[in-house]
């Protein structure tokens, strides 16, 4: 960030886009066009068409509460988050984000009415250009999400859940949703090829077929047949005379617990399976976002920084606006130290922006260190092209592993800690020196790797004939067990969906030894 700006570049005598803080639709349009001229015209960003929606703070809180998605279905937990955020906001304990952007085609950008014109310009550059480009080009988003389908799918999900509430009662739906939310992180098929992307037409068709089949095959006589018959008949797989080792038929082990339940749980009604599917699809939709926080914010922050500086150079921003922007920019990209009371983890804006700027610097003014560490990009003279390649092909962990330079490590004064839970002290294991750079980089990268931060759970056994017990295994790394209270509560939800007993075993991933067992007998 110490780099000097080429601010002295020819100041053309153009009139600024706006003066003062007030905004109106014409000004926003003008500012957007100016941003687009730089973003698309000069940087050649590849973006979805933008829709800019002006909202009030209350609507922003709303959007917050429903995990950033408009048209979300109804659930009490969103209400809970709303009342909490609202209280914090009213008391001034927390400011609202300036922007909210949705990975969709067209890309929806929210701007809040009480912000100043400078902030709107910042948001347009940040979200409508930066995030938008990232959504459209990053491989994870391309692979995992369908930007053109998500809004329609949300509409479908919302109305489907509303219909379920009408038919089966709000309480019944709530129970299924609670359970599904608890298992949301286990609703993702992580391995490539296995992911099932969302297509609205297909989904709708499937839901309709399911319903139709139900109606056609409805025969009141079944009601009079003894209950056992129904238990077996409901699931196709259960009919087969399978031995207790039916794991291969059920394609176990299965890491996508929600998927497994949707397909296999014996007692679920069809609509409940559909609800699980909806939650699973949403989890999949959010999966790339969780893996690209640093990159996504880094990309957007770098983009807004570049665009606003260019606007200023072109004489389109007043000095006052520029100062307002720099003030807000530097508070967003501030990284408190670990012992600072404000510290709450690594700031993805700060780290992402610093790394993007660093890459930009390396391509144009490489030091000998850069040449040693990054021979492919140091001095290649194409900052924007390099960045765009990075944005497209990496996610947080691989990005850090590849591009965290000694310079940024020094700048952030990163150091590694080793923590053994048995000991009263933690130990500094590496610092920013020659021996430490690679280790710090490795550890930080792992810190951003979702497959190491999320517990690794798999359905390993499901007995559909005898005890009907479901067994889930937790693959324990480094002896880190599941939080017991949470685990038992979640297990209760799992058991509710499965309908029978559920057992969770925690296995050490090296020795295979059973470290702990949890069991849930289904509550009445």
């Amino acid at each position: 960030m110490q780099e000097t700006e080429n601010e002295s570049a020819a100041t053309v005598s153009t009139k600024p886009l706006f003066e003062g803080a007030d905004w109106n639709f014409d000004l926003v349009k003008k500012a957007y066009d100016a941003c687009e001229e730089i973003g698309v015209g000069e940087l050649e960003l590849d973006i979805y068409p933008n829709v800019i929606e002006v909202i009030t703070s209350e609507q922003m809180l709303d959007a917050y509460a429903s995990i950033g998605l408009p048209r979300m279905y109804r659930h009490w937990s969103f209400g809970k988050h709303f009342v909490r955020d609202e209280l914090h906001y009213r008391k001034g304990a927390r400011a609202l984000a300036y922007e909210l952007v949705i990975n969709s085609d067209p890309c929806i950008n929210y701007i809040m009415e009480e912000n100043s014109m400078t902030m709107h310009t910042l948001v347009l550059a940040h979200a409508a250009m930066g995030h938008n480009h990232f959504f459209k080009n990053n491989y994870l988003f391309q692979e995992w999400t369908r930007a053109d389908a998500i809004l329609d799918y949300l509409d479908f999900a919302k109305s489907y859940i509303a219909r379920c509430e009408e038919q089966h009662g709000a309480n019944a739906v709530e129970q299924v949703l609670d359970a599904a939310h608890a298992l949301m992180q286990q609703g993702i098929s992580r391995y490539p090829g296995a992911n099932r992307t969302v297509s609205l037409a297909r989904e709708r068709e499937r839901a309709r077929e399911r319903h139709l089949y139900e109606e056609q095959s409805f025969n009141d006589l079944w009601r009079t047949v003894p209950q056992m018959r129904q238990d077996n008949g409901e699931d196709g797989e259960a009919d087969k005379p399978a031995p207790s080792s039916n794991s291969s038929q059920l394609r176990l082990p299965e890491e996508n617990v929600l998927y497994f339940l949707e397909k296999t749980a014996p007692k679920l009604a069809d609509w409940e399976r559909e609800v699980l599917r909806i939650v699973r699809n949403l989890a999949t939709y959010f999966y790339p976002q969780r893996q690209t926080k640093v990159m996504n914010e880094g990309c957007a922050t770098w983009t807004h920084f570049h665009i606003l500086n260019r606007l200023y150079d072109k004489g389109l921003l007043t000095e006052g606006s520029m100062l307002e922007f720099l003030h807000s920019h530097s508070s967003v990209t501030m990284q408190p130290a670990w012992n600072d009371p404000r510290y709450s983890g690594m700031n993805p804006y700060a780290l992402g922006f610093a790394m993007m700027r660093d890459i930009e610097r390396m391509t144009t003014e490489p030091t000998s260190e850069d040449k040693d560490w990054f021979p492919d990009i140091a001095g290649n003279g194409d900052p924007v092209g390099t960045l765009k390649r990075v944005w497209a092909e990496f996610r947080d962990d691989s990005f850090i592993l590849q591009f965290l330079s000694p310079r940024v490590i020094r700048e952030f004064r990163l150091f590694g800690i080793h923590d053994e839970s048995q000991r009263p002290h933690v130990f500094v294991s590496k610092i920013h020196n020659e021996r430490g750079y690679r280790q710090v980089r490795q550890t930080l990268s792992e810190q951003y790797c979702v497959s190491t931060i999320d517990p690794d759970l798999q359905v390993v056994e499901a007995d559909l004939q005898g005890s009907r017990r479901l067994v889930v295994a937790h693959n324990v790394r480094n002896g880190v067990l599941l939080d017991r209270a949470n685990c038992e509560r979640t297990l209760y939800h799992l058991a509710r969906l499965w309908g029978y007993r559920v057992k969770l075993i925690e296995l050490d991933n090296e020795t295979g030894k059973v470290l702990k067992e949890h069991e849930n007998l289904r509550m009445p």
Partner: protein
Amino acid sequence: MQIVDRRRNPKSKSLGNRQRFLRRAKAEIKEAVRDAVKTRKVSDIDAGEEVKISSKSLREPTFSLDSKSGSRDFVLPGNTDMVVGDAIPKPPPGGGRGNKGSKEGTGEDDFVFALTREEFLDVFFEDLKLPNLVKTKLKSVKSTELTRAGYATDGPPSKLNQVRTMRNSLARRIALSRPSLAYLEKLEEELAEAEAETPVDEAKVEALRQRHARVVALRKRVAYLDPLDLKFNRHERVPKPSTQAVMFCLMDVSASMTERLKDLAKRFFILLNMFLRRHYKEVQVVFIRHTNVAQEVDEETFFTGRETGGTVISTALIEMQRVIQERYPESDWNIYAAQASDGHNFSDDMVECIDMLQTSILGQCQYFAYIEVGSIDDGPYPSSEVWDGYEQLLGENPNFAMRRVAEPGDIYPVFRNLFSEETKAKTG
């Protein structure tokens, strides 16, 4: 690019979520509201509340890793002077420092948020019902209200509906092809031009004249506004249940009523007042205090004024009857009464009181509640003149109830008990 203004969208999109949330946390909210009544000042009970609930039923569990087991490596920013091998003592458990610690907030089980006034009162008075509502409806049919009832062809000018009238007029004029004023003017112009021409084309002028005469005649025949067009707003008198109530607060203010006892009584009165306000558009409150004489006073004097003297309850009842007769005819008003006393009365006065209640007052009232305030030191069920006397009213008068209150915390349960839907007259 497209800019959409969403600010005008219907507000409170999250209302559905909020209601689901409130339903979910109902048990905890109820408890919190109950606590609020115990501890808060009576005067702010009417406002919205910030309630703090434990989020037991609001947990959203997930499988998460236990930060107190196993070993881990992580990276922190902002090293100042540490080198490899330095030891840092761990923060005490619960202190959210470091990467893993801060994820688990410590205050997770306490959840503070604000209820609106309506929501607060909803919870507060949930399941409570006004007794004897049926009677109210039967009784109050006497008052009526004017409501709109379509249109009439007749009526006073002040009720003329201009839009409807003009619409009819326009339709009729079009149907009967009445020439417009503009057309007439144009014709007159043409005629004038034709007449001014030299030489005058007699045939043309004559044709125009005739047409002009026809137009004028037609305009005369088809009036601009015909009595047929007139429409008037019509109103009807609709019988309307009375939505006004009067609440009588009767209190013994003799020396034996200490400040504490008065405060107990006050809390009860306030609850009753709030409760009535939820059911009636207009609630008036009449304060009658008594020693051995009774008088109607304002609220301030009622709760703070000091009096000395003996206690004769019947004086208050007489005063109440006088006020009813003077200002609140029972046909128009729903009458509620709450009487608070420490239970002392001249014993020969009780006969008169009971007689008055029996013969007239209970018949006029929707509900009459007697609250006996006392302290716990008096033992669980001290007998008192008033309590013993009133007890004989219980059986045959379903709209009479009596309860004992010894502590502020009792007020709300007692109140709920009085108005809960399955009111069974249980004493004690």
